[in-house]
């Protein structure tokens, strides 16, 4: 890159450096500057690791079909390409791979059996049941005692997750988190306040539905982390580390993906183990040194 500049002095290198960094990461540096109010080209950036993805998603088969026939999950919503860690741009990769290479073939294949089906009537007990379930859930959210806002619960949940179910976690705190989230969930369903009406656009109601889901998913997260007695990728169990403080994997007992079957209560989820089978590569310990 510097082939055109012989014996560049310090100043030139610095100038060149800024330009090259800008060409490659200008948008990220601008984002940073707007949030932190410091110029990242001049001051060291403050960066720290944090959990920001679930490292998982809906279980799907090789055709990306979920456990519900005809319901497909593509991109980051499914679990298929996630490892124990998540690398930058995996969202894009998975969206492209699923959308370009898999779904065009598998969905078409599924639909080919139904091409002559015509319009499906809503006059069926299955439809009635589903509708009733959704209505009841909405009514329940709207009819809480109206004490705390949805954000109040979202923030409380966030704090539990941040403190006790972050990248570094231990059995004691995970058990506490499970208990606290279950209590918070009960409190939410009794005391949440959703203003406005159910039959018009209502962002608080939309948010309430999502936070209700997070309150289940959060507990399942903690349960999954508690039962995985090893350290691996974004899951660092403080009890399982090498003398140097590196992640200690246990391939003998945990070389599997945990697929949790929903049964209503997170604590009663049923574990299905999907073995990780490596045919062409040899398992190794990753070292960042």
């Amino acid at each position, binding site marked *: 890159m510097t082939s055109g500049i012989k014996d560049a002095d310090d100043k030139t290198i610095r100038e060149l450096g800024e330009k090259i960094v800008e060409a490659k990461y200008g948008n990220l540096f*601008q*984002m940073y500057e*707007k*949030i932190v109010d410091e110029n990242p080209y001049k001051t060291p950036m403050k960066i720290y690791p944090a959990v920001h993805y679930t490292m998982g998603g809906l279980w799907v088969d090789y055709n990306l079909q979920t456990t519900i026939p005809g319901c497909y999950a593509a991109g980051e919503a499914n679990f298929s390409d996630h490892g124990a860690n998540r690398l930058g741009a995996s969202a894009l990769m998975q969206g492209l791979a699923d959308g*370009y290479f898999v779904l065009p073939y598998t969905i078409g294949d599924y639909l080919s059996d139904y091409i002559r089906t015509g319009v499906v009537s809503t006059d069926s007990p299955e439809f009635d049941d589903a509708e009733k379930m959704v209505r009841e859930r909405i009514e329940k959210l709207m009819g809480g005692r109206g004490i705390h806002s949805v954000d109040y619960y979202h923030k409380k949940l966030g704090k539990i997750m941040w403190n006790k179910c972050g990248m570094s976690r231990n059995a004691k705190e995970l058990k506490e988190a499970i208990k606290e989230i279950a209590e918070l969930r009960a409190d939410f369903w009794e005391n949440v306040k959703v*203003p*406005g009406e159910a039959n*018009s656009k209502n*962002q608080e109601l939309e948010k309430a539905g999502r936070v209700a889901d997070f309150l289940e998913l959060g507990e399942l997260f903690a349960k999954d982390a508690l039962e995985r007695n090893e350290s691996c990728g974004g899951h660092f169990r403080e009890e399982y580390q090498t003398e140097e403080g590196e992640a200690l994997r246990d391939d003998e007992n945990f070389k599997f993906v945990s697929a949790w079957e929903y049964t209503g209560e997170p604590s009663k989820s049923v574990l299905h183990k999907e073995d990780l089978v490596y045919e062409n590569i040899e398992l190794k310990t990753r070292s960042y040194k």
Partner: protein
Amino acid sequence: MKLFLKIWRQKDAGSKGAMVDYTLDGVESDMSFLEMLDILNEELISKGEEPVEFDHDCREGICGTCSLMINGRPHGPDSRITVCQLHMRSFNDGDEIVIEPWSATAFPVIKDLIVDRSAFDRIQQAGGYISVNTSGRPVDANAIPIEKEMADKSFNAATCIGCGACVAACKNASAMLFTSAKVSQFALLPQGQVEAAERVENMVRQMDLEGFGNCTNTGACEVECPKGISLENIARMNREYLTASVKG
């Protein structure tokens, strides 16, 4: 800091809207503009009033949903950023801040500050894609070298997040900057050539059908665009369109 907000409230598409005054105290300069609105909403909810609805999703300048007219400028006073990237340090204690939704016939208000931008989706659906197979039969798209200058121009056009600020900024409510960015990102690359003529014709036709206004080269769109999409794209689209109609 203490702020005096004037916010557009409108129950739904069919109702008449009006500006409503709110005073908000305890705002900190490190808060983002949307966090400031979150705090206002918490206060409103605790008082038993309905919160102000506004669109938002990523809150990091990449999804294009946060779309507010702030003191008469799309995305507010700072340039090259979206509302979610705007921070309260750009305002002063005691300021009056006027917050309105985008105003354009093709973007009807859904509620309060939320507008319906599905017109943009329909323009995209009319041609904003590539349907030729680029996966190696006969040529792998990754094996075709592309000049850096072209790649950069295409990339820059592709950074358009579909926020609609260009339409909101334009006195004619024209969607030329958006549509031209979506046409250009493909027009500049080899894989975009096969469908180039159809694409530009279909997208421009859809844009006209949606009721966006004409472009009179005022350039307000480029100034207010959070992603710095260049007017060059409009010139390119006009050329593409002309070539397509000549070939007809």
